[in-house]
């Protein structure tokens, strides 16, 4: 009986221009920038979720993980970076991260999980590079607290020392290729995106991180 679309009320163009789609989920996600918006359901990072970025050493994992912070930080969200011992803050600025709202704990020594937990209440995004192999229990506790607090946890790991638990969203760098002229211009990363629950636009994508302005973009 209702299998037809009811006629839409006609609205004035001025009014139409001010409307925006209903987005209840908005406050429950943190915004993502290009090129990730098109590859992730809801075009954002769901609060309380865990994102794992896995890449072989030196093949762009850190740049990719940092690029996930940029849009949210630009929009006023705080982020913390734990266990990245010598962060290139200039590269972060180029990626679009607002450095005024980033706390760094470069060398948490043995206490990476504790430091991460200390920061959870204070930031919306938490990027963690655990030392070698993270213990199952510590990972579990951290993910539970992240879910409870509504923070987004971004874990940077290597295939040799994978994060011991399944992630809500998983980025795996399978290939990195530099394009160079008289200097390094851009890096093409082949990234496999997968996840659980909602429909992730899975499969392999080639993205540019960084491009010649230091930003991340779609190919």
């Amino acid at each position: 009986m209702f299998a037809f679309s009811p006629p839409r009320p006609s609205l004035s163009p001025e009014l139409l221009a001010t409307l925006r789609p209903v987005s209840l989920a908005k406050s429950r996600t943190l915004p993502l920038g290009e090129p990730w918006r098109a590859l992730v359901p809801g075009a954002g990072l769901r609060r309380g979720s865990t994102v794992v970025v896995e890449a072989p050493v030196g093949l762009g994992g850190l740049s990719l993980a940092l690029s996930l912070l940029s849009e949210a930080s630009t929009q006023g969200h705080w982020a913390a970076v734990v266990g990245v011992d010598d962060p290139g803050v200039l590269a972060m600025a180029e990626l679009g991260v607002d450095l005024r709202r980033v706390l760094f704990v470069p060398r948490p020594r043995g206490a990476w999980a504790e430091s991460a937990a200390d920061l959870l209440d204070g930031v919306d995004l938490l990027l963690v590079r655990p030392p070698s192999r993270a213990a199952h229990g510590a990972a579990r506790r951290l993910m539970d607290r992240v879910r409870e607090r509504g923070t987004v946890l971004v874990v940077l790991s290597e295939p040799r020392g994978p994060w011991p638990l399944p992630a809500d969203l998983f980025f795996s760098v399978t290939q990195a290729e530099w394009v160079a002229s008289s200097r390094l211009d851009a890096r093409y990363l082949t990234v496999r995106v997968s996840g659980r629950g909602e429909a992730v636009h899975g499969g392999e994508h080639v993205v540019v991180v960084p491009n010649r302005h230091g930003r991340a973009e779609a190919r």
Partner: protein
Amino acid sequence: MERLLALWIESLATEQPDGSTTRDTLALLDALSELCPFSEAVRLGLFVLPVRGPSRFFGGLDAVVRVVRQCVLDVVGAEPSLGVAEGLFCAELAAHEKVVVPLGASDAFRRSQPLSVLGRKDLATTCSRLGLHTLGAFADLETARVAERFNKHALTLHAVARGELSELEGQRDLRLARRLAQLRGEEDLFEEQGGFFGQRGDGDDRADAAAHRVRRRLGADAIVVANLRGGRGPEDRATLVPWGSPPVSVRDLAPWPGQLGAPSPATTLVHPVPLQLRDGANRPVVMSARGSLSAEPTAVIFSSPLRREIIWYAGPWPLVERWWSRHRRRAHVQMVLASGEALLVVAESSRWWLVGIYD
């Protein structure tokens, strides 16, 4: 903890009604910054600068001490008390005693100090009744016992005594940097760069509280924030400063001509790693005074027997710049290795250093 040279200048420690103290402080800070860009006015009368870099440049610690002393004499006309030790707390004590604490001896130096150096009479009195007269004896108390017997404030002092915190609360005057910036007429820039000191929201307070928690757990130097400054390479422009320390002056923020452009390496090594470049015949590649390479580099060798093939390189981009001096000659080279990693290396005279990884 960072090894610091502390300068105590008695005549600058008390504010004069005519404002000359702040003016002299600014003049001295500017002069010291010419010698070492990381010089800092901690509070009136107390200045510090890290000694690692300058020692290498000026040819040893004694040379740095001599240069700094002369600088103070020239600018302020007063004899400074100088001291070197690890961490702000020890460095200030060393300055008052006019000693250089040898590398690795800061712990023993701190432990031998009387309790009065913590600046809390009540604590010193109570401890001396318990038979504790030195920081070492106080440090050896179990943290739980200190928590039982004293208030929360004493726990921070205990952490300082144990060397877990590198500075006393109140040792820094956080408003001094702002006053100096005002004097320079830089207030607006300061606000923008400060972030932490500008307009505050709810999120800022939450972040502050979180930073405090980490600081209590790991010490004052463990939590840092970014500070962008001028300089030609990413390793010069990007600095991390302890959270809560005053922002560095932003005079140099304008892009420098000849600065290495984007993209910048995602990892910028605070302590560059020495390496060698080899040519096809396995001879070391050196940079000439005119800034050209002796041969095409084909392999990079780290100090371990680790050897990697170079598949592409660009540069050198030689730079004569004013950093420690007006005549520091360096050159950047970018390279991609067969494994897919990209590196940024710097040639400084005949030596090569890894300064960045595009990871």
